[in-house]
């Protein structure tokens, strides 16, 4: 009997060990692809990288990526303004004013919108803005389509950040006779700023990396973007990756990898920045728990 139990417990320990080993392997397999992709892109791009990639516009299947870089920056700036303001305002509403069923419906619709496939949103942008409103391939169509995609992310992070503001801060401010608007701007928003900034960074990373919503709304141009909202097609980095990767010329494939490397570097930088924000605010937060 006792022998039986001890053999049994030996088995159990063995199973336990096996599971730990398997889970560790799973962890390695989860981490490995991200490292592999980043290294692969850099290894393929770096040996041929020259500054002309950044300083020249695209020419046919060669040239540089200046037009795409400036284009991505233009679209992204526009998205940050449009989606940033709508998203933050909607986060404020959801955290402060919305009640009961209305809140659930509005919050859910935002969450569901984030799950709509990007190509569907791109198709609608094309149908409604490019064709329907006769805007043509344009900065306006591209940035509105992309904004529709990222508003939910900003709204959600803003709402969560505002909810985490300690009630004592608000009650303290009230006791000191602050007006409600002032409490919102000076206390709530200020305390929630790191969280809101992280949300904006996520939105930034998404708008830099998206392709499908832009292909049929922003179009493409080898020139620097015009600062017009309609009839102003422009290039962007993800377009270069998608269009050049299977072209027969070496120059085109290199451009594809160059663009991919720039995208990956941007994403890495944004992750680093958001980590720094979190670390900084944790160090300086008054509400240590």
């Amino acid at each position, binding site marked *: 009997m006792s022998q039986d139990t001890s053999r049994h417990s030996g088995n159990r320990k063995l199973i336990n060990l096996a599971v730990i080993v398997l889970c560790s392997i799973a*962890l390695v397999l989860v981490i490995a692809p991200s490292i592999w992709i980043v290294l692969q892109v850099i290894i393929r791009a770096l040996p041929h990288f020259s500054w002309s990639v950044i300083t020249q516009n695209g020419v046919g299947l060669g040239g540089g990526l200046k037009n795409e870089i400036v284009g991505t920056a233009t679209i992204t700036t526009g998205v940050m303004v449009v989606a940033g303001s709508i998203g933050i*305002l909607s986060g404020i509403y959801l955290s402060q004013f919305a009640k009961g069923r209305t809140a659930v419906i509005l919050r859910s619709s*935002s969450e569901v919108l984030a799950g709509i496939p990007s190509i*569907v949103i791109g198709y609608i942008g094309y149908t409604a803005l490019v064709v329907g409103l006769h805007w043509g391939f344009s900065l306006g169509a591209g940035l509105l389509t992309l904004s529709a995609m990222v508003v939910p992310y900003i709204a*959600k992070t803003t709402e969560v950040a505002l*909810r*985490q503001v300690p009630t004592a801060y608000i009650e303290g401010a009230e006791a000191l006779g602050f007006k409600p608007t002032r409490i919102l701007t000076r206390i709530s928003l200020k305390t929630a700023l790191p969280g809101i900034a992280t949300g904006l960074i996520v939105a930034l990373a998404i708008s830099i990396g998206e392709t499908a919503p832009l292909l049929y709304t922003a179009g493409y141009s080898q020139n620097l973007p015009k600062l017009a909202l309609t009839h102003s097609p422009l290039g962007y980095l993800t377009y270069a990756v998608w269009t050049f990767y299977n072209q027969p010329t070496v120059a085109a494939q290199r451009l594809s990898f160059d663009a991919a490397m720039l995208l*990956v570097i941007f994403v890495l930088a944004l992750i680093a920045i958001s980590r720094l924000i979190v670390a900084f605010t944790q160090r300086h937060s008054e509400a240590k728990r």
Partner: protein
Amino acid sequence: MATSVVEDALANSPDDHGKFIPAKLGRWSPITVISALSTCVPLLVLIGILTILFKKAYPAIKYNGGGFLIGRNWRPGNFYANPVTTNGVQHPLLASYGALPLIIGTLESSVIALIFAIPLSVGAAVIVAKKLHPRLRGFVGAFLELLAGIPSVVFGLWGALTLGPLLSRDIYPVIASHAPNIFILKYFRGSTGAGEGLLTSSLILGIMIIPIIASTTRDLIAQVPRLAEEGAFALGMTEWEVTRKVTFPWISAGVIGATVLGFARALGETMAVAMVSGVVLGSYPTNIYGTFTTIAATIVSQLDSALTDATGLAVETLAEAALILMLITLLANVGARLLVRRVASTSLPIGRGV
């Protein structure tokens, strides 16, 4: 009466954190009105998407009929002949569309992706939450963020030029020559192609949805009450037994929700699949390595040429396909959220896993 109970519960819930007293601001103050309008934007966009999609797809729905869901032809017809009118819809001569291969391709690639992603994500999350030093935990978290942040075209580039060729050269032939000719395994036999196809696409989709499932599972495990787990340890259970009998039952609803969300994301993934699936219209893959296509990949790669259809039927047919995709993902999203709202205490991440 019932509503007031709910409202009381809401008012007393910890959700109430961070609220200032909005009543003093008044219902019609500028901030309230502007922020309320902004909050309606996602709902309006959703309604707009559905309306426009349905309106645009309507002629195609009328022309393609029920055959669209069960047919496999993808023939845009003759653009040079005079257009013909059937059922009041103008269309190119001999145009005939069936979306079954697209629908099946979308579903099967996402299901295979889940088969890869679920065990890897859950396994990794268990180790991260239970075994890893907190500092290393943050480090792993950064890699999950990176995986979620890498643009899908870069996944596609990697899949098309690195992973696909590597697998088709070194791995697939080995599997194909050793797979027995029985049941499901027989689909692993035969020609392995050049790396573009169902298995490669599914692998990449699996990698892309890992962050959603893994980070949710990790956060859920952290919320399991310590007392229950410690009690189980005190009874002499091993770590695995505690995980299986205490932790997993506690988090299962949330993990299922996250899985459905990851599934929805895989269904709608566009660029990566367009770059590694081969985008073959009108046929099914003969084995698991075969080229295929999904709804999303078809839309992005065919819209350009569809625009040359003067009657507009090709574009409208893509709208019909998009409508089907939209309805499937909508269903998955709403279902996952309802399930988790009902059973679990946490909320699911949105989109790419935020």
